[in-house]
């Protein structure tokens, strides 16, 4: 068996007396899609916030295994998780830069690379050739992703003017522009119609198969979860109640109980 990309061990997050995540352990594979599902308030987004450094976990460990190093994500604070460890995320309510153009959104995602190339702005001020070259490459990368989601013709429009479904897709490829090892998607299918959901599935499978990026997915839309997940983790009240393949999950009595309640 290949080494897991992400190992979460005994993760606990408490807000005062409230235990949002209780001793949670799971793992995610490199070129697999791992879904985290559960009823509202089960602690799914909190897991993401701990992983991506927005919250400081109370206890436990989260290891990201790259080719030759093992990083403890708990050691990184907010922006460093994306910058140093290469964990990208999207948000439940879309967080684009609405008044900046689509292309600019993707360029901001490549900020750290460009910042180095611009010699902390000083070389950039004098149009150094190395910076111009790096910027051109960044535009090419942006264009590559825009071609994939079919938004190249709107590259210079404000991101806030895009239709909802396109904004979702743009947010995902913007996260991909930081060249992440692990992509965390928080309800990417929320508010999408059937056709847009299908396109989303295609995009996620492309990222998984072609880019070999591990995907961690929070989702309520079961059609998305069942169709593309390789592995499902079910949370309820901050505890893991089940894990297995999509098919096993569908038939698991514990999961049905958590969602629908017990028969009595």
């Amino acid at each position, binding site marked *: 068996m290949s080494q897991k990309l992400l190992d979460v061990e005994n993760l606990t997050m408490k807000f005062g007396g409230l235990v949002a995540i209780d001793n949670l352990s799971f793992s995610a594979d490199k070129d697999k899609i791992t879904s985290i599902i559960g009823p509202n308030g089960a602690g799914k987004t909190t897991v993401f916030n701990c992983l991506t450094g927005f919250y400081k976990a109370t206890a436990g460990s989260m290891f990201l295994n790259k080719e030759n190093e093992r990083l403890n994500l708990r050691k990184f604070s907010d922006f460093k998780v*994306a910058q140093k460890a290469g964990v990208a995320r999207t948000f439940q309510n879309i967080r684009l830069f*609405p008044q900046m153009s689509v292309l*600019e959104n993707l360029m901001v995602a490549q900020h750290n690379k460009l910042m180095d190339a611009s010699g902390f702005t000083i070389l950039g001020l004098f149009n150094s050739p190395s910076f111009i070259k790096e910027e051109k490459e960044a535009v090419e990368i942006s264009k590559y992703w825009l071609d994939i989601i079919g938004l190249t013709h709107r*590259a210079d429009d404000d991101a806030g003017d895009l239709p909802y479904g396109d904004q979702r897709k743009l947010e995902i490829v913007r996260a991909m522009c930081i060249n992440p090892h692990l992509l965390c998607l928080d309800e990417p299918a929320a508010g999408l119609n059937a056709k847009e959901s299908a396109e989303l599935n295609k995009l996620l499978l492309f990222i998984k198969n072609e880019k070999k990026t591990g995907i961690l997915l929070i989702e309520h839309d079961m059609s998305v979860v069942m169709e593309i997940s390789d592995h499902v983790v079910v949370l309820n009240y901050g505890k893991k109640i089940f894990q297995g393949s999509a098919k096993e999950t569908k038939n698991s009595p514990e999961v049905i109980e958590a969602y629908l309640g017990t028969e009595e």
Partner: protein
Amino acid sequence: MEKKFLQTSIKDSLFTGLIALALFGPIVGLRTVAKNEVLEVHPKWFIVLIIVVVCAVGRFLTNLYVYNRDQKTGIQSSIGKSISNFLDTKGYQIALTAIIFSVIFPFLPFTDRYLMDIAIMMLTYIMLGWGLNIVIGLAGLLDLGYVAFYAVGAYSYALFAIHFGWSFWICLPIAGIFAAMFGVLLGFPVLRLRGDYLAIVTLAFGEMIRILLLNWYQLTKGPDGLTGIPRPSFFGLPFKSFPDEGEQTFHTFFGIEYDPMQRIIFLYYLILVLALITNLFTIKIRRLPIGRAWEALREDEIACKSLGVNPRNTKLTAFAIGAMFGGFAGSFFATRQAFISPESFTFIESAIIVAIVVLGGMGSQTGVVLATVFLIGLIEVFRDFESYRMIAFGGAMVLIMIFRPRGILATRKPTITLEKSSS
């Protein structure tokens, strides 16, 4: 429907008149005059009546033509749209014309000492507006204490020039660096603050600097101010009517008559160049990764963090660079006035600069110029009306906000476009 609308707007305007009466009745209507050691009340009901009628009728008209959504040909949509179309499409031409005009301005036939002074003052405000535009317009950090950096620049220039006798061109960068350091100093404690909270802290910071200048008597001479700040020289050639023995001055070197206007014209070009440098720098840095990160930070800080953008460094650079230009403008101010005191750096200065940036359209460079010319020009035009000029100032702001709620020039051009970069 039509009739009902008319009814509600009449009701609304009568109510407005009532409020105006309640406000202006006591403020304007009752005037106390000291006569024979007794205070007498001199009522001025006629003026109150005029004000109330103006308020009520004005409200009625705006109801009919501005806020009336059914009426598509309302003033706002027609005039507002044509102005905005003109400004949005012709931004580049406006900028070019303004630059050419400002270069030939000192030599136009009607230009006199008074106009030159106003032009220099406007350019100082334009430069400050451009500097603050980096902080407010691009990075979205509402800084109400910008005048502090102006003061730091002015005082550091003055102190270095007086005590060490260094020339303007050495003191200028030093003053800029000092101001930038104070920018970082302000930046650190406010890193986590946003919006209203940030505004309050920056406001306090501006006051702190002023009070510090007022009380640190040994260094700043407190309320007496610093006098005898050296005037700038034209690359080593001073502007003097009676040169010392063997000293070369501007007019002897060029073999022309001495004229006090020579120095004014030199100061004018100095601030013009400084302001244009600020502008070019801002235009350039907006297109660099740091500039894009500033704007992204203004749009959504959490999204920035999720993309690995360091919010601390990004904010601090915005504060530091904005402050640096404030410092440059401050040292120009000091050398022009030859005298500075804390009086010159009160909160109202910050407020005017913020007003210029906001009214110009956040982040718009040309907008800053238009707003400055409009606001400062208006204050000057109304100079003879004394206290009424602040009413004109306020009225102008209200008008801009009615017709251009997002500022005079509100459109934003992307910093990079696919068409251009792929061709």
